[in-house]
């Protein structure tokens, strides 16, 4: 199931119409309606694995309620129990098969657990459930939440597929009060949905076709082509995921719920620490608050800080998948951030001017792009082949035929790279302009975007990259 299919589009219109009718009705009725729609949506993607979600909600909510009334060791024990119970299904679905494969290889047996499809959204609602319990434990969240509201929080369909991981503090206050949904909020939602479609269905899906070829057999391509593939993937993953986040946040806004942004121009970061403050913000802050800080954060000296960073980033890497490649990707980022943290005293002496800012942005971007090779490549050998091809078989004579053969691809890639230089002010200005446009203009914009999607649509629609995590 993808956000860009015609069936989902029609279903969303029907859903929105009923939502508008029920909006003035009792709050509980509206929540129940939203839960049923979300579970139906979840069933469509996961079939009977969908039952895991209400099961997690029942266990997590009941135990958390019990824990909130306890103190001392019992409270701590209950929190540990909740975390373990929440994590069990995720660990089972995500890591049992690769772990059994590894074990059978080590013991030289032919025993292996069958590979089971990962229920879509499990990583995201599990993390939301853990964050809720931990926040209650830390007394950072004190609002009383009934089971229906909690189930609504875990199953809210715009967040279900790929986040953003939303905290209880952001979500519950909004559903507790009778919110007035302004026209401005509705059209902000529409703006984000249109922006998301442009990013995901127009640019990311189109450039993905070529990237897939390159990563499938990097040794068949020249260094220049491999570089283009790597650049293409770097833009693809950003546009794909930030496009999805825009659509999610936009739909939530149309339903009267404001969510925090998940991407804030990450490729303009001046260092890796800043990059992780701007990239997949909901995940990076989750790991910061629920893993890095409990590990000791930066409170025990430089060496321990570096170690904590490395462990956190490796965990973040493994969250994406149980392969060696994700581990390497996480470790590289961990090492990068640790080096940056350790060298901060020296970096402070360097004055900020356009040259130092540009150089630091460029170096950070290069490092991030280099790391994407490990994230996307199917194995270490492919990643090494790709990188060695870029560094040893670079032949710029490919550039001209490449541009001639893939003009649209090059234009889309160049356009998306140039869009990174759009200032935040200009972006906000464009958003405000769109909101104040006449209704007809908004309609024409959406029609135009939809037609461009149809024009560029590939026969195989690319699923959202973050579905599989």
């Amino acid at each position, binding site marked *: 199931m993808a956000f860009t299919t015609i069936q989902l589009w029609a279903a969303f*219109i029907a859903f*929105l119409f009923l939502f508008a009718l029920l*909006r003035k009705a009792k709050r509980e009725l509206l929540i129940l309606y939203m839960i049923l729609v979300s579970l139906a949506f979840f069933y469509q993607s996961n079939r009977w694995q969908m039952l895991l979600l209400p099961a997690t909600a029942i266990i997590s909510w009941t135990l958390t309620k019990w824990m909130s009334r306890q103190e001392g060791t019992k409270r701590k024990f209950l929190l540990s129990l909740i975390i373990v119970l929440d994590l069990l299904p995720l660990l089972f679905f995500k890591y049992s098969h690769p772990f059994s494969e590894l074990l059978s290889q080590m013991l030289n047996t032919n025993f292996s657990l069958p590979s089971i499809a990962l229920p879509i959204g499990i990583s995201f609602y599990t993390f939301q459930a853990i964050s809720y319990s931990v926040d209650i434990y830390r007394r950072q969240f004190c609002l009383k939440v009934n089971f229906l509201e909690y189930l609504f929080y875990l199953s809210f369909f715009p967040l279900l597929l790929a986040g953003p991981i939303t905290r209880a503090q952001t979500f519950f206050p909004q559903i507790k009060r009778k919110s007035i949904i302004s*026209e401005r909020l509705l*059209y902000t939602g529409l703006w984000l949905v249109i922006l998301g479609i442009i990013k995901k269905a127009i640019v990311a899906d189109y450039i993905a076709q070529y990237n897939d070829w390159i990563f499938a057999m990097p040794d068949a391509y020249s260094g220049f082509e491999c570089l283009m593939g790597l650049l293409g993937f770097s833009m693809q993953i950003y546009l794909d995921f930030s496009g999805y986040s825009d659509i999610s946040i936009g739909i939530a806004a149309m339903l009267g719920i404001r969510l925090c942004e998940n991407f804030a121009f990450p490729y303009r970061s001046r260092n890796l620490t800043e990059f992780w403050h701007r990239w997949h913000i909901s995940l990076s802050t989750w790991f910061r608050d629920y893993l890095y800080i409990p590990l000791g954060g930066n409170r025990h000296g430089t060496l321990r800080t570096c170690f904590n960073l490395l462990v956190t980033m490796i965990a973040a890497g493994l969250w994406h998948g149980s392969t060696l490649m994700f581990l390497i990707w996480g470790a590289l980022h961990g090492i990068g951030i640790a080096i940056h943290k350790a060298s901060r005293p020296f970096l402070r002496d360097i004055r900020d001017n356009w040259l130092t800012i540009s150089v630091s942005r460029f170096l950070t971007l290069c490092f991030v792009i280099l790391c994407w090779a490990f994230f996307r490549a199917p194995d270490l050998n492919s990643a090494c082949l790709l990188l060695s091809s870029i560094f040893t078989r670079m032949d710029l004579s490919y550039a001209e035929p490449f541009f001639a053969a893939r003009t649209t691809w090059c234009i889309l890639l160049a356009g998306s790279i140039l869009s990174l230089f759009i200032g935040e002010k200009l972006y906000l200005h464009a958003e405000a302009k769109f909101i104040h446009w006449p209704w007809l203009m908004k*309609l024409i914009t959406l029609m135009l975007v939809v037609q461009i999607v149809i*024009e560029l649509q590939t026969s195989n629609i690319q699923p959202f990259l973050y579905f599989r995590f």
Partner: protein
Amino acid sequence: MKSYLKLIAIFLLPLAFVIWYADSPVQLPPPGWKLSKMQLPTPKEETITVSKTRKTSETRKTSKAIRARNASKAIAPLPSLPDSSAHRILFFGDSMVEGLLRRMNCYAFANGYDLTNIVWYSSTTEIWSQTDTLRYFINKVKPTFAMISIGANEQFVKDVAMRETYIRQIMKLLGDTPFIWIGVPAWKEDSGINELTQRVVGKNRYFDSRGLTLQRGRDRMHPTFSAASEWMDSVAVWMASPATAHPIRMNLPTDDKKHIYKTYALQPLRN
């Protein structure tokens, strides 16, 4: 409610338009290009029944159309005499090219051609059509004539029909460049790649190697170098004959000396 209705209309109207346009015979033509239509999903049952009833007539229609297209290519006026230009020949394909190129080098020398050979071991029509390698070499060599020998690694594939797209893609990449396709000297009955290639490229561009008796090397598949020379001689005779779409001069080399032309050996792709 009013704001919601306006918002719903913004989503509903494009959807209605897309569905109407996809289903209607109307073609909206903005200047210079036609507006594409969205492919509407069809209910599964309907697809099955429709495909059952339509299949035979549609297949007949398609194959008729293909035959008609091929026939029109085949009937294209044949040059009365072999083209005597000093061609830049691009000879590419799988490991079979390795055997043929030695003798082809002699032909190129004897006839004043500039020859570039590319041997891509274990390659297939899929690999040649889906990668940029061919495009790169076409751009580099700018051939005026092409020789192809691909198919040895696809003799026993099950999805032969799929290969048609790849062969057509290779032809598309070659554009207007005249070419010949040297068929696989099959050592046992294949699953249809020779038939398919012949149908797609046309008989006048396809050299059928199946009738040849060639001495095989140790692997029992590739012809020995001397057998491959004989094979190339047969191809050369056919290339100069009016049976081909674009005959070129292929005078017999006066000697059997080794002549060196640019040869690229590409390693097999890993899975």
